[in-house]
């Protein structure tokens, strides 16, 4: 289970990787909406996109390795309004 700070750090470090794999936006939200505990990284990918989004992101801290769950949200890209 990751806390908000850890999920934010995972996004900061690896958000670009998710983008390169097809995400058009990367968020951090409480996991309960997705049936998960703590906080999760949310990869927003276009509908019908065959994403290669990993199920979690790992990074190292002084206290050891942290694993943050990734959930995929299919949505149209955000547009200027």
């Amino acid at each position: 289970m990751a806390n908000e700070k850890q999920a934010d750090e995972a996004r900061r470090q690896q958000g670009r990787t998710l983008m390169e794999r097809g995400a058009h936006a990367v968020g951090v939200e409480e996991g309960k909406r997705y049936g998960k505990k703590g906080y999760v990284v949310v990869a927003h990918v276009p509908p019908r996109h065959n994403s290669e989004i990993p199920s979690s992101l790992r990074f190292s801290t002084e206290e050891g390795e942290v694993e943050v769950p990734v959930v995929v949200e299919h949505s149209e890209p955000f547009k200027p309004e």
Partner: protein
Amino acid sequence: MPKDHTPKELLQALDMIRGDSGPQPESLGALESTHIKRIRSIFEDPNIVAIGIAEKETEAKATGELCLSFYVEKKHAKAKVKAGRMVPPVMSVADRTAVFTDVKEVGKLRPQVNRRATPLQSGFSVGRAADTGTLGAIVQKAKKFFILSNSHVLANCGRAKIGEKIIYPGDVDRGATKAQPVAVLSDFIAFERSADFVNHVDAALAEIDKEFLAKLNFSIFRAKAPFATIDPVRGMKIVKRGRTSGDTEGTVKDVHFSALIPYPGLGKIGFMDQVFCTTYSKPGDSGSIVVDKATGKIVGLHFAGSASGSIFNPVGEVTKALKFRFAAE
């Protein structure tokens, strides 16, 4: 007439046609089922824009009788209406009673938008050339007054020239009236066109013409004067007034949101540390000022969205980039 006094058979007929709460054709007899299916098929005609209960009119005179009213964009002569598209003059409801119908011309229905010619005010339509969005706020630098909105509303995403005219209301909202220039583009933050999440704001300023300085309304929807700003936090309830969707509310879901936003003619522009919320906006709301509902403090500048959410720039980044303060009476 209050709904309570509306004849029951008319309400039944309305429910039956709308199909949501009324009986389904499958639950009725074959004759009634065919009748209702035929009536509902009339809605496939794009000329029918609404349905309701109103006083029947015959030869432009009210008859005093309520009827089921079909509202059309344009009323055609009976001879020109296709057989399957004709609204029957009488319609039977489930208990075999009959109701009269009427067809009323109402023109094209459009969502109402916040537009006006004066005063210049937060939450109303503004634009440059063909681009239309929302006037965010009247702001001040030294002794000069400016309109704050998005770069993609006032500055063609950074491709416009300083000095270009800003019109109020925006082009799509001025109807047949002549465009009214009220300000000139004076500053904007150019996008960094990169595959990375590097941009922080979509913002621009336009200096207000002298002749409109006496026609300013400094109020911002739900913001307390003198205006103060606040950093967004997850769970914060926010409000905004926009050109298209008017006064709406949302909830902050994320304060470090990263997104690639496709700008016409520019491609994808990467933004970082944005504020992602439940959906509170529609196209045309860009430039709206977002306010913390609890404190009345300004929290952001709206700029993007989709069916899955709305996004605003944190106000601290906007004021830092364009170096202004919010003006008040």
